[in-house]
């Protein structure tokens, strides 16, 4: 049976409330560094998304379902684009905002609580949209 979206968002919010130190230690053990990964998008994949995001026309990037800001911060940094990060669980967005600030990206990034099924943006606002394991 497929759970409803509210259950999924609540579950995600609980994951984002976990102690970051414990998770960073786990990430370092698994992948050799801690970037804020809590899903399956490894650094090489984030770099691929950044490269693809900067390959076409210039313009801001929408990070759909940003979670705690990974891989959004790497894309904003590498692609040298403004980035708008959206998601539903606010606890994750707070971490995302901190992740952007920690990398001196606050002026080029914006964090917005929004459902991807009702985006609060005009058509053609973004040059590219990135997502990682959102549609599953």
């Amino acid at each position, binding site marked *: 049976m497929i759970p409803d979206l509210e259950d999924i968002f609540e579950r995600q919010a609980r994951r984002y409330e976990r102690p970051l130190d414990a998770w960073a230690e786990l990430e370092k053990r698994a992948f050799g560094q801690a970037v804020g990964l809590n899903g399956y998008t490894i650094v090489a994949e984030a770099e691929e998304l950044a490269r693809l995001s900067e390959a076409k026309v210039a313009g801001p990037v929408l990070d*759909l379902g940003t979670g705690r800001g990974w891989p959004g911060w790497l894309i904003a940094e590498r692609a040298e684009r403004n980035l708008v990060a959206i998601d539903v669980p606010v606890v994750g967005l707070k971490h995302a905002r901190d992740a952007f600030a920690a990398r001196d990206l606050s002026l080029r990034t914006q964090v917005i609580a929004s459902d991807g099924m009702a985006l609060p943006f005009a058509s053609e606002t973004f040059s590219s949209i990135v997502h990682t*394991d959102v549609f599953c």
Partner: protein
Amino acid sequence: MVVGFSIHTPPSLTPAQEEQATELGPSLVCGCESPQELIDQAGFSGLEVTDVTARFRRTCSAWLAAMKELEPQLRRELGDEDFEDELDQKEGMLIGIDEGLLLRSLIICERL
């Protein structure tokens, strides 16, 4: 341009396999249309799909190995229930991949 990674199922699973994929993988892995259908509905085209399942398997496996190595610390900091829930998810994902029920792809498309 829309670019991202997505976990999905192979085409033509039986209902029983879909149920199994949903139990082993992400909750919505069978909950919506195929990438092609979603892209079409959203008015995008030029779909490019690159299978990255082998890399996805290595990622799951690395998570799982690290979780087992750090089990006492993680149980203490996350709590038993949360730890076991996370472990079950990672183990389920690996089983789903190995049984051919779960795939992960890089999906790229552009506005018409």
